């Protein structure tokens, strides 16, 4: 192994950009997962399937219909927003009224059922072939020794924009404030006239929209196929744990970190061992610091 390669500016940017692109995908997924968990207590194991549906929506709009890519991304996000809300209102909401104190675990199991159904429905409808595009935008940016494709810059740009909008929405909009209130004290939020069921439905929709958007945005790297959501969901689940369950900024930070770590470790070892490292890291964090890397407070171990 020649470590000096890592100091080569070409390779350094290549690795960093690759890491950030991966990290951006993990972050979009993990932000939604973490939001849904933080507010509803649902660990959505079917989140990867929402990613998959977003990828198919993107393929349909850009390749089948031949419309421009921004439309595709918007359609993927909006379609999944609606689908997510439907899923919440029909299934998760029904479970909430029956599960009682087994809720957290039962909701997790329910999303496993959702995963199995969606994945196999996709298999039936679309088959196993991979449907993607080679690139949404052509060309590369050359700046001294640094070469980055416009495609990757676009991915990073869109992801940052979406992240910022999400932050602003949660921070400043009245619905965003209601969402935060519901996560901090649902009963009190209700006494102020906040319809908590609506909050749950919208929150799940937002999480689903982020996953769908991620699926659409990364179609040139992860072409749509029925099991495409598996890796994203596992990795983003890891990020959510590393960042602390329900801690959205923590999850995003962990996602970027994990993306870069993976891109670097790809230099040293096969992709298979990367997964062992990720899984090992998560196990380690769960053992020594269940509240996540970035939290100052001790979390209730529920």
């Amino acid at each position, binding site marked *: 192994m020649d470590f000096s390669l890592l100091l080569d500016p070409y390779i350094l940017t290549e690795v960093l950009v690759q890491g950030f692109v991966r990290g951006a995908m993990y972050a979009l997924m993990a932000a939604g997962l973490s939001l849904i968990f933080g507010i509803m207590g649902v660990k959505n194991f079917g989140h990867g399937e929402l990613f998959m549906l977003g990828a198919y929506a993107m393929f349909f709009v850009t390749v089948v219909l031949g419309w421009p890519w921004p439309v595709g991304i918007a359609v993927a996000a909006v379609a999944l927003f609606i689908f997510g809300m439907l899923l919440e209102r029909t*299934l998760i909401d029904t479970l909430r009224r029956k599960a009682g104190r087994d809720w957290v675990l039962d909701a997790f199991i329910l999303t496993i059922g959702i995963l199995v*159904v969606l994945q196999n429905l996709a298999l039936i409808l679309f088959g196993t072939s991979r449907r993607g595009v080679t690139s949404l935008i052509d060309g590369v940016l050359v700046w001294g020794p640094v070469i980055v494709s416009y495609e990757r810059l676009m991915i990073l740009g869109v992801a940052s924009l979406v992240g910022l909008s999400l932050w602003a929405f949660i921070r400043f909009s009245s619905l965003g404030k209601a969402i935060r209130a519901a996560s901090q004290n649902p009963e009190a939020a209700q006494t102020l006239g906040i319809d908590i069921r609506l909050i749950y439905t919208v929150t799940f929709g937002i999480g689903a929209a982020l996953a769908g958007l991620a699926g659409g945005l990364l179609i040139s790297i992860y072409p749509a196929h029925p099991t495409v959501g598996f890796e994203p969901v596992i990795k983003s689940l890891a990020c959510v744990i590393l960042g602390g369950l329900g801690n959205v900024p923590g999850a995003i930070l962990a996602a970027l970190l994990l993306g870069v770590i993976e891109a670097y470790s790809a230099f040293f070892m096969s992709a298979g061992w990367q*997964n062992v490292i990720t899984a090992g890291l998560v196990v380690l964090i769960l053992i020594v610091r269940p509240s996540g890397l970035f939290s100052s407070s001790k979390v209730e171990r529920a």
Partner: protein
Amino acid sequence: MTAIPARARDANPWRSTPVRVLKVLFLIGLLIFIPPLIDNPYITRIFISAVMLGVMAAIFDLMIGYAGLINFGYAGFLAVGAYTSALGTFHFQVSPWAGLLTGGLATALIGLATGVISLRLRGLYVALLTFFVGESIRFALSNSPEFTRGMLGLSVRPLPELLGFDFSRGNILAYYYLLLLLGGAIMLLLTWLVRSRFGLAFEAIREDQLATQSLGLNTTKYKLYNFTIASFLAGVMGAFYASYLGILSPSPEEFGVYRTVEILTITYVGGRGTLWGSIFAAFLLIGLQEYFRGLGPWRLVIYGSLLIFVMLFARRGLAGFKKYLW
């Protein structure tokens, strides 16, 4: 509020009504005599799958149904049993018969270790931790092809002849009866366990850890017992699975999340905290799967829908219909 009512403890299985004894004997009779009478390897394989997955699901139930511990890396634990036995034979010429035991012991060790590191965790955190433990095991297996042959697949020798019984691969009835013996013993052990003082302690963990601790029960100890015993039994089943199947590969379908989900579905459909419900559910689900084999992925859609249905509308699983069927 909890939808799973406390199990009835009044029914003592060892002192049953004659009608019940007859019903049980009838079912056991079906298990013993149907495969040889039909004498169709296809049917026998279905029976083997159903009993094997049913017993695996009952072991899973010991954790989730009785102690509220979910082992979401369960398939990885089965893989430890399967690979310990198979690799022992492959590399060190250990008899596959001893492999049933070494597989169990190795898995028990992993279970104990996982139990120790998850002691402070509860509920969902245990699920997440075990999931990543299971995945680590699977990744490690697939990333060490020089030792495990990874995704190329490890071929496993059949069990050698024992007491004059021929366990060559062609004689699957022998495997079936071995499974009935093994599975029967495991089921009896599990039933005894949950009705002993262990069972009460497990249930106490499930119901409320804090209250249990304040009653002076050492939940930590019983959590470890539960996890280790379940892992040992899972390892034994994994080792049997290896010998029966003849080829192992650490794919997600075989030893990853899909297998865990399959077993978990059987447990939930059978009814959490019922043990025997898993066996019935396994026959139902494997039967459905085979019946709908021509439908391809539709059978998995049915599987997933059934899990959703059970979670939403039949929260006690098949056990909820017991009074109509039994």
